[in-house]
């Protein structure tokens, strides 16, 4: 590395995207490695960020290393663009990356950083999804030693994880993992798909968009490259199930705002104590509502 090379900085002494160029290059190299070995947890030197580890610093470092002028960014937290984590991260990126646009519309974004959800709208090959990950290793529940976990990953030995699923079925008649469902990528490595609900796991499979996972505290990067197989770990005779949003009559519950019956629903308690269901992906809900409004206006005119 040329020690006389001057790093690009603004007047205040900050580089574009907060991280210095060397740090970004290191992260990019590890992203490439992660893409080359689908599902493999690539270690990287997670930097100190001006926020606590565990608040999305892993995802943020990926985003800052990838983003450039001309990019359009969307930040989501649990499906919503307006919750605290999303607002703060978006604000920070706007501050440190001049010339970058932000949006709430999934289809307009080139880069999406998300906490715990994959957008409902199908992503395209022109988009990249960055997920924030608290615990990157799915084997941590069955093996405390990282050295041994690495050997297990290397040998593709996930029998103990399956034993965990076996125990679940024995005791509860079903697999009780609600999120972070262990998923096998490209037939070898099993990864922890961040805490996305089971509903989102099938979206990893053959996704046209590149999906990157960044764990800041645990210092790991891993990836599901575009058009790669992603199969949730299952038994041959017990198929994988996503969340069931059926009511007592067996009908699929719908969003109380937009009426969608194909989205992941959040449950709220209304003022009268009744249960209300609403799309967890706020952008999806808004866009559906505005199309309905314009259609209604069309009719009334």
């Amino acid at each position, binding site marked *: 590395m040329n020690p006389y090379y001057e790093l690009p900085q603004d007047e205040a002494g900050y580089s574009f995207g907060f991280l210095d160029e060397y740090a970004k290059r290191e992260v990019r190299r590890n992203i490439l490695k992660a893409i080359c070995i689908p599902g493999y947890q690539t270690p990287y030197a997670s930097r100190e960020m001006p926020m606590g580890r565990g608040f999305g610093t892993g995802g943020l470092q990926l985003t800052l290393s990838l983003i450039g002028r001309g990019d359009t960014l969307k930040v989501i937290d649990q499906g919503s663009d307006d919750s605290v984590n999303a607002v703060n991260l978006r604000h920070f990126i706007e501050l440190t990356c001049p010339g970058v646009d932000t949006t709430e519309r999934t289809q307009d974004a080139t880069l999406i950083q998300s906490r715990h959800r994959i957008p409902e709208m199908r992503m395209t090959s022109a988009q990249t999804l960055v997920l924030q990950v608290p615990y990157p290793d799915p084997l941590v529940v069955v093996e405390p030693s990282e050295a041994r976990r690495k*050997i297990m990953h290397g*040998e593709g*030995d996930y*029998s*103990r994880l*399956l*034993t965990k699923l*076996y*125990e679940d*079925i*024995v*005791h509860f008649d079903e697999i009780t993992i609600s999120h972070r469902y262990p998923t096998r990528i490209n037939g070898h490595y099993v990864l922890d798909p961040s805490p996305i609900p089971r509903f989102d796991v099938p979206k990893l499979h053959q996704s046209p968009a590149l999906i990157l996972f960044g764990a800041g505290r645990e210092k790991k990067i891993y990836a599901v490259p575009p058009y790669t197989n992603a199969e949730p770990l299952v*038994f*041959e*005779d*017990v198929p994988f199930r996503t969340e069931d949003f059926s009511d007592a009559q067996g009908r699929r519950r719908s969003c109380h705002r937009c009426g969608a019956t194909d989205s992941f629903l959040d449950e709220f308690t209304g003022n009268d104590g009744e249960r209300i269901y609403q799309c967890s992906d706020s952008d999806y809900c808004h866009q559906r509502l505005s199309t309905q409004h314009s259609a209604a206006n069309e009719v009334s005119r």
Partner: protein
Amino acid sequence: MKKILGVKNLGKIHGSGCPRCLESTGPDAGSNICSHCSSVVAAANISFDLHAGEVLGIMGESGSGKSTIVKMLFFDEEPSLGEAVFFDDERQWDLFSVNAAEQRWLRNHRFGIVYQNPHLGLNFNFSAGGNIAERLLMSDLAHYGQIRERARDLLTRTEVMPERMDESPKKFSGGMQQRVQIAKALSTSPPVLFLDEVTTGLDLSVQARILDLILEIQQELGTAMIAVTHDLGVIRLLATRTIVMKNGRIIEAGLTDQILEDPQHAYTQQLVASAL
């Protein structure tokens, strides 16, 4: 008879080791600690063959290197010297030159082990059935219904009440834990089974039933076994051939009856006399 395991000059040295380790330890030196470099020679010059369907007993006092042999053959410990060849149906495996994945495959598919301490062989966080499921899953069976059925069969076979298969082995008695271990070891019908002091610490009636079970299985399935024990009764009941060890060396080997009735080595004579 078909040879299934051939062990040649197997040895394990804990410590730095020196060229004079082997000559300065053993029964003649009366110690397994090398007087020159203080390395511990746990076992050395171990050679024997195991034939299909036979039970080979390894007898000796504590610290004589009995368990070390079994641990090396089951890949729990890495040997310092020697080689071992496993004659499988289709191919021969040079046990100590195969890679880690192949070792794991052999452990899961072709070998079984029952430890003295159930904590080593069983995962107490899983149920009894789950422990068997784990081994079946390791050997690439991923069908929940079949796993359940096989686990239930095995536990019935080893006389653990199948109603209790979904309980943790924590709640079981020592004898039952040992039976679960045996069921787990047998789940993949391995051609070779290692028994490391299986009855030590159990009361006499439970011991007798476990030994009965092992004999039945051996006759039914024709599993070749290596039984490590310091109990002469176990040797007399199970083993057709026996190896006697002292200070990490084999001092006598032969037919069990011969060794127990007409021991040649002074140490074996003492061992047999003290038991009677």
